[in-house]
């Protein structure tokens, strides 16, 4: 009885994973070995379970690796992946640099003030993500708020071109993902025992030394969690580069969109998506590994 209940508890999340992640992924994975066709759906072969085993085997023979070969032949895809990873990496670093002092300040604020500060970090989520990115167009455009302000202050003579450049993409990503960095950092810093710092200072550490020797190492789980939460979705980001980026912006989310919608090439789009998943699985596995090691340490 006890064993059955235990199995049931484990089965639910695994069933969830199977139905909402693995099955959809295998459909995409299968399409990535298909060939485009002028039909509904726009690829071939289409497996029908009514055809029996022989029919399915026959169709399985039509599957091909061509789409993956195509990805290696056109440098566009490699450059899109590399550029996406680079943009996501730099953005993650920037969110960390901005987010850490923010989270540190929040964790050191008086106990009564903290809920309000957390609330302020979460507040932007109450407005649609799309509308917030659109708002940045209004801020960054040539006659936009930022250029007006800088001109009025006398900092610049001619308006800066920020919109439709990679700079705008960085601003958009850092802005949109900052809460995902701040919250795990805050959680890590807030539960830290302050007497450890006092002890370090008693033993002769300066404040800065105490920070690097005690505070930062103890906040590392938050740094890793926050970085993953920013890096992983940023690699596949589509909306921000589409709305804020320009002709120089190359990101895999856009490349995938073009394959799927403009070139009507579902198989190549599926191959691009499958590889993207592979790229993202590596940091996720590392993250998991780090998490499980932590729990073994008994924290």
């Amino acid at each position, binding site marked *: 009885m006890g064993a059955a209940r235990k199995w049931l508890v484990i089965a639910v999340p695994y069933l969830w994973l199977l139905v909402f992640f693995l099955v959809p992924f295998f459909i995409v994975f299968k399409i990535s070995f298909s060939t485009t066709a002028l039909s*509904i759906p726009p690829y071939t072969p289409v497996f029908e379970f009514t055809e029996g085993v022989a029919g399915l085997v026959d169709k399985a023979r039509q599957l091909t690796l061509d789409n993956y070969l195509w990805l290696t032949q056109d440098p566009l895809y490699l450059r899109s992946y590399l550029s996406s990873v680079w943009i996501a990496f730099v953005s993650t670093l920037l969110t960390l640099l901005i987010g850490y002092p923010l989270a540190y300040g929040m964790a050191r604020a008086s106990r009564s003030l903290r809920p309000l500060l957390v609330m302020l970090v979460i507040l932007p989520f109450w407005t649609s993500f799309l*509308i917030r990115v659109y708002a940045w167009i209004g801020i960054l*455009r040539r006659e936009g708020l930022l250029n007006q302000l800088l001109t009025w202050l006398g900092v610049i003579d001619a308006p800066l*071109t920020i919109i*439709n450049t990679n700079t705008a993409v960085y601003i958009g990503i850092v802005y949109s993902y900052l809460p995902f960095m701040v919250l795990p950092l805050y959680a890590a810093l807030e539960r830290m025992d302050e007497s450890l710092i006092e002890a370090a200072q008693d033993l002769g550490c300066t404040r800065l030394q105490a920070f690097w020797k005690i505070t930062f190492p103890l906040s590392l789980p938050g740094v890793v969690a926050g970085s993953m939460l920013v890096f992983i979705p940023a690699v596949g980001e589509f909306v921000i580069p589409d709305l804020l980026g320009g002709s120089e912006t190359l990101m895999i989310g856009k490349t995938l969109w073009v394959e799927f919608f403009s070139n009507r090439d579902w198989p190549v789009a599926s191959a691009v998506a499958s590889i993207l998943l592979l790229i993202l699985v590596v940091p996720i596995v590392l993250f998991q590994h780090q998490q499980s090691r932590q729990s073994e340490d008994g924290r």
Partner: protein
Amino acid sequence: MGMTRVFAAAAIMAAGTTGALAQDRVVNVYNWSDYIDDEILADFTEETGIEVVYDVYDSNEMLETRLLAGGSGYDVVVPTTSFMARQIEAGVYQKLDKSKLPNLENMWDLITERVAVFDPENAYSVNYMWGTNGIGYNVDMVKERLGLETVDSWSVVFDPENAEKLADCGIHFLDSPAEIFPAMLAYLGLDPTSSDPEDIAQAEEALMEIRPYVQKFHSSEYINALANGDICLAIGYSGDVFQARDRAAEADAGVEVGYAIPKEGTEMWFDQLVIPADAPNVDEAHEFINYLMQPEVIAKASNYVYYANGNEASQEFLVEDVISDPAIYPPAEAQETMFTKTPYDARTNRLVTRAWTRVKTGQ
């Protein structure tokens, strides 16, 4: 597409779906956003008792993806010819029952014949609106930088010297090789419908020279950007540029948007009314299409959206602003330079797509 469009779309959707329960007969229409006078839908329901469930999209790609996935549930959709030709081949649509469309006699032969390139014998589709690809520009900025009173040639952007002068105020291109390559070929004096690899290579080389001056390749953002004065030139669709022009005029912030049909020739496009193969309400779909072919009705639509329609009998009902605007109803001599182009075959499509990627990424 701009936020206002999205809001408008949501409002129309909400208006279209409420009250659908009371009626038995329904037609599900999927059309471009901002593309009809809502009164027409209300009048149709009043006259026929058929409820219209109206839903909108903002790109051919979005429509095509839904249709190709199958089971869209729509009865009438409005693709552009370049997309529609492929979709007909893929078996997405059903043939029209012309005995149910007596108003076909009102249609304009000139347009119907041009559409036949995409839809042989006009078996599947009826024209709703048509227009051109051309140049949308900020009148003051272009005048200031190039000294031109009016724009009438592709050279304003395809000549690298001109493009360089306009680079600082912003140039946008449609993110669509099937629109830009034919335009460049026309400018170079080659056959714009060519799929000869050498011609494509020549066009690519010419595009490479101007790409450093292009701020963005995007198929809808230029509407807002032109209207707000954020860019000075865009290669785009006539109707979108008219929208930018109207918004700029409404905002009254000193932005004047012009539209030019280049003299070297440009592509015509046609948005066609068609019935998906798996449409649930085929009779109602025919009634709806037939209703839209009434001269007064389609004239009302044109007077509202400022696009030309393919209904000859409707022309006497058009307001002066529409029928006399050479950018909307181009004069006969301009019509002669306009071309229609069937979609590239699969091999050429790959070739053009690759060339386009090199142009966009600059290598």
